[in-house]
């Protein structure tokens, strides 16, 4: 049963337009990050890339399929956990919140024009101005 569920999940994630990949603006030199590092970035705790450039976190609304896939597969979190972290930071003054875009098209355009940006897009939406980030474990 567990194998069947895993296969279904893999099939679901491999469907065009349903799987997402993490992308950064071409000005960012990092193309490999760990889950912990992605969590620090999307939790808005880490605010600078290794070269000192400011990190700009861009996302879709929490209820979208792409955001859901991203938080589960890359951050190993549920969307409500990330929302709670952002709310805590926003209302206790200790951190910023990401810039949110309503559609994938708007998000892609913002990622392409924002130096230091990081976000996610459906697989196959990458462009020359963006680099794909792969996950690695130390």
């Amino acid at each position, binding site marked *: 049963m567990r194998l069947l569920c895993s296969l279904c999940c893999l099939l679901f994630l491999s469907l065009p337009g349903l799987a997402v990949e993490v992308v950064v603006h071409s000005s960012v030199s990092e193309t490999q990050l760990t889950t912990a590092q992605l969590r*620090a970035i999307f939790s808005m705790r880490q605010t600078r890339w290794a070269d000192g450039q400011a990190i700009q976190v861009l996302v879709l609304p929490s209820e979208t399929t792409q955001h859901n896939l991203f938080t589960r597969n890359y951050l190993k979190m*549920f969307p409500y956990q990330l929302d709670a972290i952002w709310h805590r930071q926003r*209302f206790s*003054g200790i951190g910023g919140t990401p810039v949110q875009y309503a559609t994938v098209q708007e998000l892609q355009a913002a990622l392409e024009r924002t130096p230091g940006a990081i976000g996610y897009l459906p697989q196959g939406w990458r462009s020359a101005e963006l680099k794909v980030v792969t996950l690695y474990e130390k």
Partner: protein
Amino acid sequence: MKSNNFGAVLTLAATLSLPVVAAEQPEWHGFIAQGLAQASDSNAINDSGKLSAKLTEIGINSRWQLTERVRLAGQVVYLNGGNRYPEGARLDYLFVDLSVIDTFDHQLNLYAGRYKNQHWLFSSTRDVPFTRPSIILPQSVYYDTFRDIAVGSDGIAIKGFLQHDLGELEYNWSYGATSINTEQSQLLLSPQVSGKARQKYVHQASVFWQPAGSQATYGISLLDSEFNYRPGAAEPFSYGEVRIQRAMLNWRYQLENWELAAELMQERLAIDGFYLPGFSRSQSGLGGYLLAKYRFNQGLSFISSLDYLTRDKDDKRGSQLAIQGIPAHFGYQQSLMLGLSYDVAANWRLQAEHHWVDGTGRLSPSLVPDLVVNQQRYWQVWALQLMYWF
């Protein structure tokens, strides 16, 4: 509003932050919430036990990026919670945030000014209606009478995160004090006091650990604080000193639909003087809660908590209080809460809850109990609140 040492700390912090470069656009956020509440047979909301609309919370905050590593953040709130805390506006926090370490595996920030308490699971967001799990939090840990003292203090604090292959470590430390006005003194001590209560210091530290791949977080937090009281002319109380020390274990477990949280604490309360010159007493209380939340689809959540507190672990049911002429139910407080919340639209939430309570150990005032209104051992409180945030 709180004021002690605040200006000096903020000036020092501002000096540290120089030189200031062109600031980025400040972020603005806020919330407004209005509700109804009723607590029969107790002074939890008001002395009459009648339906009350004193459940108003309004807040606005902002955060400015001053330089690459320095930010300024502040929040002002207006509260009207009946007897739960003094009505009016207050500066919740206003601090300079200095980013000391900002690397891939370690982030450390220093806060100077009026910082927020980051040491308990809900301490940093208890004042924001939609970020706390219930309208009235478990009183064993989040005693409303101490709300203004526990939310934040004037001083310095640090907060750090370490990301490791084995998991993530959050560490916090803070040292400061909160000034206490006459209205707060009367809630804490007795309506008869007219003198000046002062918090000398509050020193706190905490660590939280989330193992890699786990949805559980484990924490421990420690608190040490001293107060003194200088009586006014013609009042029945004497000069007194109070020391509170708290050790607490925190646990949180988050699944897709279920969320569980628990905090267990031991709190030592030592009083010298106050009631009479030469009076001395030290006692340790025990308390804690288990809180569960279940998320249904479409923004509907069910929430429940079990809360327990005894003010003296050597007299758990308060039987020794009779010697002082105080009913036993002032020695403890335990409760069951059931509630629902529903997200009626984006950034709008309606929340309702009912508490069944046994004991009056966490009603105000803290040191001189209200024997007139709080005569009933068993009492109930319900609350309904509509909240909006941006």
